[in-house]
């Protein structure tokens, strides 16, 4: 493992993850469909997870990989709640576009 990293170099992993993360961010920013926004957030989280793994290998230390499980679980819980909210919104509104959520403002 370590040697692969030595060949490729941790920086590239970081860049990759940052790129992924940014893709996630842009997804969140530019998509209006709530589901897709969720997915973009998931991308962000997973980018981070990937980076965790990379670092843990880099440090030769398991904590990082353990943490990934944490974050996955948490993400799952979050999404569950999120979807629940989304469902009730869909019930009331008949749409899941976040552009319709502009009643609260000013």
């Amino acid at each position, binding site marked *: 493992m370590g040697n692969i990293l030595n060949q490729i170099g941790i920086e590239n992993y970081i860049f990759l993850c940052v790129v992924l993360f940014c893709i996630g*961010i842009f997804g*969140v*920013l*530019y998509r*209006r469909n709530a589901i897709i926004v969720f997915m973009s957030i998931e991308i962000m989280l997973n980018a981070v997870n990937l980076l965790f793994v990379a670092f843990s290998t880099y440090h030769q230390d398991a904590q990082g990989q353990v943490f990934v499980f944490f974050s996955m679980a948490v993400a799952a819980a979050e999404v569950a709640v999120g979807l629940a909210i989304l469902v009730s919104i869909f019930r009331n509104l008949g749409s899941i576009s*976040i*552009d319709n*959520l*502009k*009643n*609260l*403002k*000013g």
Partner: protein
Amino acid sequence: MEMDTNLALVLVLTPFLGFLINVFLGKSLGKTVSGIIGTVAVAISFIVTLVLFNQISSTGKAIQVTLFEWIQISNLKIDLGFLLDQLSVLWLLFVTGIGSLIHLYSISYMHDDENMHKFFSYLNLFVFFMITLVIGSNLLVLFIGWEGVGLCSYLLIGFWHKNQDYNDAAKKAFIMNRIGDLGLLIGMFILGYTFKTLDYSELKQTILTIHYEPQIVWNISIAALCLFIGACGKSAQIPLYTWLPDAMAGPTPVSALIHAATMVTAGIFMVTRLNFVFDLATDVQTVIAIIGAITSLVAATIGLVQTDIKKVLAYSTVSQLGLMFLALGFGAYEVAVFHVITHAFFKACLFLGSGSVIHGLHGEQDMRKMGGLRKAMPITFWTMMISSLAISGVPFFSGFFSKDEILMTAFHHSIPLYVIGSIASIMTAFYMFRLMFLTFFKEFRGTEEQKHHLHESGSLITIPLIILAILAAFGGLISLPGHSWLNEYLAPLFTKVAGEEHHLGATEYSLMGVAVLGGLLGILIAYIKYFKQDNVPESDENITGLSKVLYNKYYVDEAYDALFVAPVNFLSKFFRDYIETGLSALVFGFGKVANEIAIQGKRLQSGSIGLYLFVFVLGMCAIISYIFLAQ
């Protein structure tokens, strides 16, 4: 010492007691009683004064009474105390004397007025303050009386308070006096911090002992000037004289007591009191002399054409006061004092006489509607005639001596002022006799039923008249040229040798002659104009030319309104409508701005998640780049 204190207190407090009684019980006591109380109160102080006069003229040394410390100021302490010396006692004599006569007179004169008790309480209060003014041992006590008498004159001028014109007159009097008072205050301040005291005797000591740096001399002159402004206010000199004629709105006894005999002479008193200050400010003295002369002339000219009997007397008062200041200007204090006394006698008499006339005609004051009262009210006529002769300076009446001395002094110092003075006195003679002829000679020009009720006033009115007339006639005896009792009596007051006795030489006699001739001339003109040709002044609308200007008092009041009152009122309006509103708008402005920003800000809070997240990311990038990419 103890004795003196008590005497002084009795002297001061009896009128005050009378005031209190009349204020609180007057109504229930009934008119006559309250009148008597008032009169007695003043009479008592008169008696006390006599006692004191006796004592002082015998011992010849002043009595200083200190009650308690009044105001503490770091470098000068001001006691509430009295100084009874020749000057103050002399003043008291005629203040209380004439005061009691006029009280007596008022009992009958005011008898028809529902608020008679109030009238007497005010009069008593006035006497109280006047006494305080006279016997105060330092300038600040004098100031109590000074403003106090001003207050009383305010109350008495506006005595018939339902008539707003009278109230205006009263207000005018008070405010003009206040202008003077400010001057007096400033004068006190300067004296205070130059000499560290306001007490007459100490002040005198310091001033006589101190060695003069230019700074101090300068201060003294400024102080003297300010004090003189104060005197101008009280004693109705140019430019502050316009209130006095208006003050005639008050009941006639008031005019007699306050606006002829006593209060208006306070200025002369103050100057005389502080003669040691004025002696050091020669240029100020010149100013005083000039202003006095001019005032006397201006007032006399206005007096020529007035038709209201009291107005005539008022202007004559102003002009006489002018003459007194003329004398003061030359440092001839005793002369001024002499004229003050004689003037008090005959002017009080004249006013009371005119009062009796007005009383007889049920409030008619216009001389054009009088005439031929000689037969109807002989006593009034004769007393007034004596006083007129006195004021016109007909020989051997009191006015002759006093006025003559003034003119002599003037002659010795400055011919032009002497000329002005003489002209003024000629005019005086003229308008006084114009008054006499219009009022008492020929036949009655009033309405029928007025004519029907014509009668001599009651004894309460005539007795004071007679007494005053006698005094007016023989008052001159106290200071005969040659050997003057008055001068000797007052001598201790003055730093420099009391007015060098005019040894009666040729000049003096010729001057006397001139004066007498002048007086007679005035009388003669009046005789021709109003007796021989018996013409009567035209009614207001068809007065024309110079006489119109004079009749309207040179439009001075109008000028003052335009120059001072109007601008202030304009400013007040301007401040109120623009500055005030502007300022508060400015304060509210901050709030408005904040609210405006808030309203704009609400737009940004558009409710769109996209925007929110966008700003979020933007902020994040900004921060990170600031921290890490900045360097």
